[in-house]
């Protein structure tokens, strides 16, 4: 067999041999392009080259086995390392996993599992510590459960007792409601009775007063004639005076009772109208200067009612009759407790929509014991009064949106200022006794 090799293939051992290069070639390829191990010789006298070569694949065939064995060993070693890692990892992680599971149980409140997981010294020590903690928590939990159970029992017992008490309270309430209903009924019956009685009493009193006044005037006129003066007529005049005074009292009492009934039944109605306050006060004062009115009381008293009207006209939106009633009550009250001297009454604007009326007397002043409850029902020091006048006056003033109060002056003399605010006008009254 013969081949021709191009002279350009200088890297081949064949060409190298012809170039007289006697050498070893370990990284060359032969004429086939296959890697070979080759040795070259040059026969000088023949001018021939000798190449002895062997394919690398065959030369290193035994090494291929070694390579496969090495790889196989490497794989085996790798697998062994992985297996050993798994075994070692499990030997470390298994106790930790067990610990984790037990601690989860502990977290859920299961304290029964004893922590005994083995493993390395550190993990075993940790397990012991955790087991001690579990034991402590378990004991504490048991103790707490016992406490909770005891408390629960107490609370349940308390709840039962409370329920019993609640039932008893409900029963008491029912009884109270029943009693209250009875009382309300009785109160309503009583109020109705008083109201009816007052009405029934007032009806006959009016003609009694009218006729008594006529009779009194007649006797007074007869007694002015000297020939008619006699001891009998004088006594008649005195008797009629007593009858009139008590008739006025009875009339006033029935009127007061009716007003109180209206106030407490919240059926007091105001018929408001725009009026001049100055004129009202002046009229009331003039009425009291009338001797007839003076005869309601002790005509021998030397008491003068002094009213100094202001220049400005004061308009107020009020129930005229009720305002007159208040002023009369206060003046009556002042007259009752003033034996001599003056009773001053004045009215003035203190702000754009506020008016104050002051009644000031020269009496002994308001008893300090009664002052705090002066405007309550039946609060009186007078043997003649019913103790309802100031109570009625206060409620009427408040129904107008005003305020009434009483105070002693520095010289221990009392005054009753009345103030009322209104959108358009204001007024006030003052009484002194």
């Amino acid at each position, binding site marked *: 067999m013969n081949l021709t090799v191009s002279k350009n293939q200088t890297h081949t051992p064949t060409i190298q041999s012809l170039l007289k290069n006697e050498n070893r070639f*370990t990284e060359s390829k032969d004429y086939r392009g296959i890697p070979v191990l080759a040795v070259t*010789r040059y026969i000088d006298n023949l001018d021939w080259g000798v190449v002895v070569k062997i394919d690398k694949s065959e030369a290193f065939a035994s090494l291929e086995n070694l390579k496969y064995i090495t790889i196989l060993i490497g794989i085996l*070693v790798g697998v062994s390392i992985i297996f050993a890692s798994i075994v070692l990892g499990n030997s470390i992680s298994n106790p930790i996993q067990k610990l984790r599971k037990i601690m989860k149980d502990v977290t859920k409140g299961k304290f029964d599992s004893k922590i005994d997981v083995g493993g390395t010294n550190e993990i075993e020590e940790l397990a012991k510590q955790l087991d001690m903690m579990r034991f402590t928590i378990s004991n504490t939990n048991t103790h707490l459960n016992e406490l909770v159970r005891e408390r629960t029992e107490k609370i349940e017992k308390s709840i039962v007792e409370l329920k019993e008490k609640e039932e008893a309270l409900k029963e008491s309430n029912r009884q109270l409601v029943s009693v209250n209903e009875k009382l309300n009924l009785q109160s309503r019956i009583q109020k109705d009775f008083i109201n009816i009685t007052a009405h029934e009493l007032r009806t006959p009193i009016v003609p009694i007063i009218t006729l008594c006044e006529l009779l009194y005037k007649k006797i007074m006129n007869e007694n002015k004639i000297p020939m008619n003066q006699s001891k009998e007529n004088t006594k008649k005049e005195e008797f009629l005076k007593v009858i009139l005074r008590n008739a006025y009292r009875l009339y006033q009492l029935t009127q007061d009772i009716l007003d109180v009934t209206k106030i407490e039944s919240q059926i007091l109605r105001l018929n408001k109208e725009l009026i001049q306050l100055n004129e009202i006060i002046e009229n009331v004062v003039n009425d009291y200067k009338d001797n007839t009115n003076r005869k309601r009381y002790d005509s021998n008293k030397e008491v003068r009612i002094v009213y100094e009207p202001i220049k400005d006209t004061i308009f107020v939106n009020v129930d005229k009759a009720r305002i007159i009633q208040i002023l009369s009550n206060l003046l009556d009250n002042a007259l009752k407790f003033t034996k001599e001297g003056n009773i001053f009454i004045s009215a003035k604007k203190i702000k754009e929509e506020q008016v104050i009326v002051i009644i000031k007397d020269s009496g002994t002043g308001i008893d300090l014991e009664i002052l705090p409850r002066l405007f309550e029902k039946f609060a009186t020091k007078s043997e003649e009064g019913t103790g309802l006048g100031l109570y009625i006056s206060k409620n009427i003033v408040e129904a107008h949106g005003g305020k009434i109060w009483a105070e002693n002056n520095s010289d221990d003399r009392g005054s009753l200022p009345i103030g009322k605010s209104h959108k358009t006008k204001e007024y006030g009254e003052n009484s002194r006794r």
Partner: protein
Amino acid sequence: MIFGSFNYINMEQLLKNEILKELEIVAQLNEKDIQDLFEQNIEKLKVVSSRYQLNVELDKYNNNGDNKNNSQKIIIQIINSIKPEIKNFEDIMILDPDGKVVASTNNAYLDTIHIEDKFFIEGKKQNNVTILFKEKNQELKSYLTGPLTLSDKFLGVVTIIYGLEDLLSLFNEVEDFAATAEIILAKILMVMLLL
């Protein structure tokens, strides 16, 4: 793995050195065997070229125009007698100074002229056993060629067509060395023997 890799590399280096050593030994042995073989071939060539009767008859042939046929017959008888003596001698040709085959163990070569052929040109100079050629069947053969002289008088060229069985047999042993082992003989003319 590192140890395995290191071990593999180390083993590969050791094995490479060992194999290269063995290849060197084979190469050295073959170099020597080839040189011995060619020296033997020189000797074989001399066996022919040194035949006195052959040279005398060739000289007569060259000078005697009338008895050329007789001299030619004698020469042919001489070379025919030599051929069996030497193994691998396939044909022997005797060429006159003009390159014409005057005698041959194979009649096909008679009267053919080879004045420009390498074996004739080289043979005129000195003994040469390195000329190779391919036959028609692509079989590689060797020419053993050298000058024929009588008392330093150049008479012509003797050329022996030589089979390379001896040479090839030198390399059979390499098959025992390895399946892929090869010995290559390369000549500067880029004709390579692959054995």
